[in-house]
């Protein structure tokens, strides 16, 4: 009998092991996923920064970065200063971190982490392909809208902790702007949700599969097209990009909320900003432009091409963002608020009402 009970003890101990190792593998997979997403976001930010410099240069009839290159044989021939942003990134990482003497040191340190973490958290639900959704949430779209509110808090804290008039003004402008434009943006997302009947990002894309004519931008014409335009303009404002770049207006308030940031902490804000651009590109392409699905129906719609389409569509959106930034002048604060509350918000409601009535009366 004692032998048997000893065996029992061993068996009991062993039966715990699988659950423990399962937990461990789960945790490992989560950590791995987070590392991949962080790497991807950083890489995309580097590419976007390079693109921005090149696009702006060519729009203003100059060349932009042309010199920085390596001696590595194959890469050497690419030229066009492709290594410029890489060099800039290393420079930022090695720069001295200056904290103003009168700043609130703890909050000054915390703010860039909140902004960066919120941006990365949003990447967790982006659909890159049918089986390539890092976290396939049932409330995906809602999660994306909610998680971006952490960014606002981070920006406000950055502006407050810097103890600088420009920072504070920039942070307040930024927060007011993001909060105001969140309303038309959310209502136009609601239009899509009504049309699809799901908050799941994967299901929203599947609803649009089968070619360019099935994309949500063409449905309920012209109401979804209107919603697309509203979401696009609102996303520009939420990204603090020209013509709505008042929070960073360099001719008025130096650099807004990140005036007092340098080195690594500034790099985090910078990285988050460009990662956010890509994020908005993916969100717009998912909600209105068919996401991962090919514009030619089942042609070129296999798994590798799905990732390709997501990137093509997102970078097309990013290109238009850059195009607008380098061609339009900055709006005034009152014009900004007018755009949000008296133009975009009413039209967003018109669009929502239109789709609702269409679904009741025609379908």
């Amino acid at each position, binding site marked *: 009998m004692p032998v048997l009970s000893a065996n029992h003890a061993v068996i009991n101990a062993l039966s715990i092991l699988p659950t423990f190792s*399962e*937990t461990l593998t*789960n*945790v490992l997979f989560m950590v791995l996923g987070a590392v991949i997403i962080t790497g991807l976001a950083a890489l995309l930010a580097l590419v976007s920064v390079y693109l921005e410099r090149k696009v702006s240069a060519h729009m203003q009839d100059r060349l932009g970065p042309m010199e920085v290159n390596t001696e590595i044989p194959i890469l050497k021939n690419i030229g066009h200063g492709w290594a410029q942003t890489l060099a800039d990134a290393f420079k930022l990482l090695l720069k001295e971190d200056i904290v103003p003497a009168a700043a*609130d040191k703890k*909050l000054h340190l*915390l703010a860039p982490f*909140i902004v960066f973490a919120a941006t990365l958290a949003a990447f967790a639900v982006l659909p890159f392909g049918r089986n390539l959704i890092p976290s396939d*949430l*049932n*409330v995906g779209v*809602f*999660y994306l*809208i*909610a*998680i*971006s*509110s*952490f960014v*606002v*808090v981070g920006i*406000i*804290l950055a*502006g*407050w902790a810097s103890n600088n008039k420009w920072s*504070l003004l920039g*942070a*307040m402008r930024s*927060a*007011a702007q993001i*909060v105001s434009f*969140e309303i038309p943006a959310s209502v136009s997302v609601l239009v899509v949700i009504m049309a699809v009947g799901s*908050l799941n990002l994967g299901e929203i894309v599947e609803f649009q599969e089968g070619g360019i004519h099935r994309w949500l931008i063409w449905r309920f014409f012209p109401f979804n097209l209107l919603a697309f335009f509203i979401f696009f303009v609102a996303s520009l404002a939420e990204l603090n990009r020209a013509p709505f770049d008042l929070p960073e207006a360099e001719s008025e308030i130096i650099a807004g909320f990140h005036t007092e940031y340098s080195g690594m902490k500034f790099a985090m804000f910078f990285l988050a900003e460009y990662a956010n651009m890509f994020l908005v590109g993916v969100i717009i392409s998912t909600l209105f432009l068919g996401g991962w699905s090919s514009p030619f129906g089942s042609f070129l719609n296999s798994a590798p091409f799905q990732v390709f389409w997501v990137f093509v569509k997102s970078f097309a959106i990013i290109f238009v963002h850059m195009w607008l930034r380098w061609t339009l002048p900055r709006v005034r604060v009152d014009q900004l608020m007018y755009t949000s509350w008296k133009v975009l918000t009413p039209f967003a409601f018109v669009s929502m009402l239109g789709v609702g009535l269409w679904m009741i009366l025609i379908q």
Partner: protein
Amino acid sequence: MQDIMFYMFAALTIASAGVMVFSRSVIYSAVGLLFTFFGVAGIYVLLAADFVAVAQVMIYVGGILVLLLFGVMLSQRVTGVNMRTETLQTVPAAIVAVGVLFILFRVISKTEWLVKAKTTFEPTTAKLGTLLMTDYLIPFEIVSVLLLGALIGAAFIARKG
């Protein structure tokens, strides 16, 4: 796994709530509140209430906390009001606190708590929507009228001042 996650979120919630209550600076309290909301959202997720968790983050972080920070920034750095919490009227506060503690303790010990055997993770959004549009339609409408009233009131006060 879920137990570990629960204790992590619970520890985060309690620790940041502690920061919120004991901090003298209003802005530090607000940061504590940010993490409290995050921790509570995590606990909602573990209870399989995905929609409630996200709504919690959206409304409390995106709405209330931003408004609070805005208020503090406008009053402290712009008009120079020193916003620090102080201890005033210790004796009445202690009496009220003990009273509330007693009530809470009675309620906690008398309530028969629902202990869920196993949480199944399934979509809750559609069910919530159906319930709001059928059984709970009148409370839902009353809340929206209340919020509309608050909105009009806020606009009225802002116009006056």
